[in-house]
């Protein structure tokens, strides 16, 4: 693998790392397998791309993506907590609806962002050489997101959120509504995923309505790789693990491509990767 491959993997790992942190909230903290992320990643990209073509400041477009993702998460939350639709189905329904909504937002299936002002083109103006400028920007964003998330999960509300996924009966006994907590978790999770979608679109130079396919699996892969390699003894450690997991995941994809695997085989590879990592603890136990 040459250097440019490594840099690309690192950049992708960081940009998608925000998405992995979102999946970490729903999947690990809330214990809610939320498939809406396959729709909220392109939602963030769509919102951001549409605003960029209208000449809006790219950083504002990130905030708009964040908000849009939060609304999508609230819809999944509403379907699950108020209409009592099962988590998987609630996520699928939101994801499916978002496909149409994303097309509406973009007006067409693909918006190229070449020549548009993006967060990357702005940072390039500061005069730092590539790839440092891109890397510094991405690292800065993910550090801010990670530390805000760590801090939030150590507040009183954060404790309640964590306990909701761990033992809902206990949290009800503590006088806290599990429904509100689920809602909050899903809003946060999908907001981060959409933010990531906006970052990815600006990074790759286009937004595509199909770019969300397999997001949940990639997110799970990152979360699980992180847990296996870094651990999950505390929230601080676990979120580092998620980001490292995301980077390692993109590296393994690059390696697979370098070894001559067709790009169309990547989804299969990802699924296999997740299966292997998920089953490792059991296989280890069986071998003992």
């Amino acid at each position, binding site marked *: 693998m040459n250097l440019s491959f490594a840099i690309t993997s690192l950049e992708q790992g960081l940009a998608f790392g925000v998405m992995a942190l979102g999946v970490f909230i729903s999947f690990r903290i809330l214990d809610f397998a939320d498939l809406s992320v396959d729709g909220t990643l392109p939602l963030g990209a769509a919102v951001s791309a549409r605003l960029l073509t209208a000449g809006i400041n790219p950083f504002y477009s990130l905030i708009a993506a964040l908000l849009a993702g939060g609304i999508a998460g609230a819809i999944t939350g509403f379907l699950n907590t108020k209409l009592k639709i099962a988590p998987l189905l609630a996520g699928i329904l939101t994801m499916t609806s978002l496909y149409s909504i994303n097309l509406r937002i973009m007006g067409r299936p693909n918006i190229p962002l070449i020549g548009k002002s993006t967060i990357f083109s702005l940072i390039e103006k500061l005069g730092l050489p590539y790839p440092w400028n891109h890397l510094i920007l991405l690292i800065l964003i993910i550090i801010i997101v990670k530390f805000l998330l760590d801090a*939030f999960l*150590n*507040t*009183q*509300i*954060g*404790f*309640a959120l*964590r*306990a909701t996924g*761990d*033992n809902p*009966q*206990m*949290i*009800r*006994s*503590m*006088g*806290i*509504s*599990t429904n509100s907590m689920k809602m909050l978790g899903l809003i946060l999770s999908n907001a981060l995923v959409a933010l990531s979608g906006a970052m990815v679109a600006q990074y790759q130079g286009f937004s595509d309505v199909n770019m969300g396919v397999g997001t949940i699996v990639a997110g799970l892969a990152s979360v699980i790789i992180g847990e296996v390699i870094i651990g999950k003894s505390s929230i601080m450690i676990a979120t580092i693990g998620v980001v490292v997991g995301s980077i390692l995941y993109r590296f393994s994809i690059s390696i697979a491509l370098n070894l001559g695997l067709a790009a169309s085989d990547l989804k299969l590879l990802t699924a296999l990767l997740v299966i292997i990592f998920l089953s490792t603890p059991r296989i280890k136990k069986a071998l003992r």
Partner: protein
Amino acid sequence: MLKLKDLEKIFYKNTPNENIALNKVNLNVKKGDFITIVGSNGAGKSTLLNSIAGVFPVESGTIILDKEDITGKSEYRCAQKIGRVFQNPLAGTSPEMTIEENLSLAISKSNNLSLKWGLSKHKRKVMKKHLAKIDLGLEERLTTKVKLLSGGQRQALTLLMATVANPRLLLLDEHTAALDPATAIKIKNLTAELVNENNITTLMITHNMEDAIKMGNRLIMMDAGQIIYDIKAEEKENLSIEKLLKMFEIKHGGKFNNDRMLLSV
């Protein structure tokens, strides 16, 4: 403190499996009462506690807690004034969180949740003081994840969490039944200690007749969804297991049928 009026709960209503779990139950609990509840299987003991805790809506009747009508309120709303400990020692704590994080939720129960830090120096100090009371050395293990504790330790912690915010009412549903005998005795002593210290109004279901007679100041016996005896003060002090069983047979017209209860007599 707690007033139940004509409380009625029917499971599987209008089906062949219809089961009247609570049949017009009336109960008047005074502040500071510690009531033990006994009864055969299916008498409605747990249904009574679950109804008060808002786990499910009742068919009719009213539940007044501390002058507030809580009938039909959802479980988490009722829980803001009620502490609960379940039979399952794993039910009352969050296993992946640490002892201090669990306790923190219990301590801030009386206030609204906010974005303040969940832990603070002051909070830790308060926690240590509380944990020292249960005498299991947990005050030295604040950052231990709760899943690493034994069932007895977890139940002790749950009991502390249920009482630390001074609830108006404490509901205990056979909370020592799943523990080994030595641990069960410890938890019972701790229960008496915590309840007396804060003068908490308490309803405790037990299958152990001896405990039912020894603990608390009032004993209620339930059968077929009704309270058949309500034994107070002096009368309770002169009670014996034999007397209690005989009283049951008179009303029920048959032997007491609670496997676990017979074993523990």
